């Protein structure tokens, strides 16, 4: 493909390499370092004049440092006369403080979905998927969960917090029947994992045979890993929007779905001016 360059920030070089491999390209040469006073320094190592540039940087780890690095890289490419600069941000930082709504941006935003990859994983890895039940750990995720349940043609359930009186602690109430079924919890991100661990306990005590958790972004900060190790999950599945190698060493229940092909395909389609909406319901091979 002519006129395209892909650069990687330092947040997730592994994913960037996978994306580049799928596109049959080499990652662009860039040097990112910090001066001794901790200021970020970026130098692009090749010409980007007239090129369509994609910068892959995930909002994970040291978020403010990675964000600054991304901004400086974008700035450097624009000054070096790149024809277009696109930021590929698998896990968008600060997304819980504001909504990552398209209308908040002045520039085009393509929000891709991990759903097709999740469906594929369920069909390939859970034997009794035809008789499973998809569960949302909170009321806000109901739409996400029903979408998956419909495509698999299975039932869904949800857990919601109920507070009877003002000073009482929230009670978790299961809405739906999970007796003798394999329960699959689905959510968009797992940070400290308090909610999903409580949900798993609830499901087991309500009669579920096994509990899986499938989450798009596995942030896993604070006590998350120890909570997962002590909880009754069969497996906790996340995508590789955030690097998981370190965490997998401390927790054998974590499995990873590779979404590099979705991002690679999105880049290819954007570069060629093709529609990206195909990716909202299909996983590229």
């Amino acid at each position: 493909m002519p006129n395209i360059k892909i650069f990687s920030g330092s947040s997730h070089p592994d994913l960037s390499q996978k994306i580049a491999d799928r596109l049959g390209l080499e990652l662009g040469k860039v040097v990112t370092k910090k001066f001794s006073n901790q200021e970020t320094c970026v130098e692009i190592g090749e010409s980007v004049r007239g090129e369509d540039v994609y910068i892959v940087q995930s909002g994970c780890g040291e978020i403010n440092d990675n964000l600054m690095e991304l901004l400086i890289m974008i700035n450097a490419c624009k000054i070096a006369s790149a024809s277009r600069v696109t930021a590929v941000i698998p896990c968008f930082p600060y997304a819980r403080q504001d909504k990552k709504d398209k209308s908040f941006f002045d520039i085009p935003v393509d929000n891709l979905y991990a759903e097709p990859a999740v469906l594929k994983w369920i069909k390939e890895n859970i034997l009794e998927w035809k008789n499973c039940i998809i569960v949302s750990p909170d009321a806000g995720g109901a739409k996400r969960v029903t979408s998956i349940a419909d495509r698999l043609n299975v039932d869904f359930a949800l857990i919601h917090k109920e507070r009877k009186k003002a000073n009482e602690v929230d009670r978790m109430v299961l809405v739906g029947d999970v007796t003798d079924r394999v329960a699959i919890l689905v959510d968009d991100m797992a940070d400290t994992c308090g909610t999903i661990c409580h949900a798993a306990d609830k499901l087991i005590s309500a009669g579920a045979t096994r509990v899986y958790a499938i989450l798009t972004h596995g942030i896993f900060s604070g006590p998350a890993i120890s909570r997962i190790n002590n909880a009754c999950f069969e497996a906790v599945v996340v995508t590789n929007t955030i690097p998981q190698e370190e965490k997998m060493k401390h927790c054998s229940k974590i499995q990873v779905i590779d979404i590099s092909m979705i991002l690679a395909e999105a880049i290819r389609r954007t570069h060629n001016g093709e529609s990206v909406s195909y990716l909202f319901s299909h996983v590229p091979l």
Partner: protein
Amino acid sequence: MRKARPHPKCRMNVPKSGYRVFSANSSAACTELAKKITERLGVEMGKSVVFQESNRETRVDVKESVRGQTIFIIQTIPRDVNTAIMELLIMAYALKTSCAKNIIGVIPYFPYSKQCKMRKRGSIVCKLLASMLAKSGLTHIITMDLHQKEIQGFFGFPVDNLRASPYLIQYIQEEIPDYRNAIIVAKSPAAAKRAQSYAERLRLGLAVIHGEAQCSESDMADGRHSPPSVRNTTGHTGLELPLMMAKEKPPITVVGDVGGRIAIIVDDIIDDVGDFVAAAEILKERGAYKIYIMATHGLLSADAPRLIEESAIDEVVVTNTVPHEVQKLQCPKIKTVDVSMILAEAIRRIHNGESMAYLFRNITVDD
């Protein structure tokens, strides 16, 4: 004319149209300067909570109403530069969306000010930062001893560049016995202008250090090498453009006589101390019997304290624009000058719409 008397229970002097001072730093070491400034102003710090969540996202919560008020945000830049910048941006934006009238950033040490020139295929981070600060809602900035004065041009709004030199000069006059036998030294030709302005005000001589290890920074700041450096010129027709001659690097040398004098090196930032240590060596060789370093911003990164302790430098004097308590513990040669008074005075004058000229009365053109 009725004079407003403060309510007996209220310890706060609330000026007529109301201004509040916030600090956007999350760590205690950084809020020290802000506390000193608010004490001098006689106001209470605005109520806010700034912290890092477990996933390293910064969170800022402003706990009081700021509608229609003038707000000053004091932000010190510690080692974690990018987080401090993010804290400032988030707080400014939070205040803007809460209908504050004016938001003035008090950023004594302005970060990324060394990345203000085009370097090969780099980014002019300072300009990027200026755009981000403007977008987040700041309408005015107070800073001190900007590394390059031209940075003021990156902003579309007023930037007050205060000077620490009156304080450092006062330190020299009061704390260095027989300072009249001193000579002001510039550690590289680039610092000569600033050194000259100190020498003028103290009526002392000037010396400049030149040579090895001074050229690396200035080479990089040359901008893009256009046309590209020579690869192969065979068969290339077209303009015969003259090639850039590589700069000669002479051995380190002192221009000026320092024999039998106290040497005072002045600079705006002291960060990596390799250059300073080398300068001290050569000054000692040429006969200086005491060596002081005066710098506004004491970043003192990496193992600067250890290197200073082991070197020929007698004392390093910096202001409290950048927190350096840890470095002081490691190296007793480091001394601090408090500049909270001039920052508090600037805040007061800006709020009251008074002239700032008094704060610049003793400053020369080259400072």
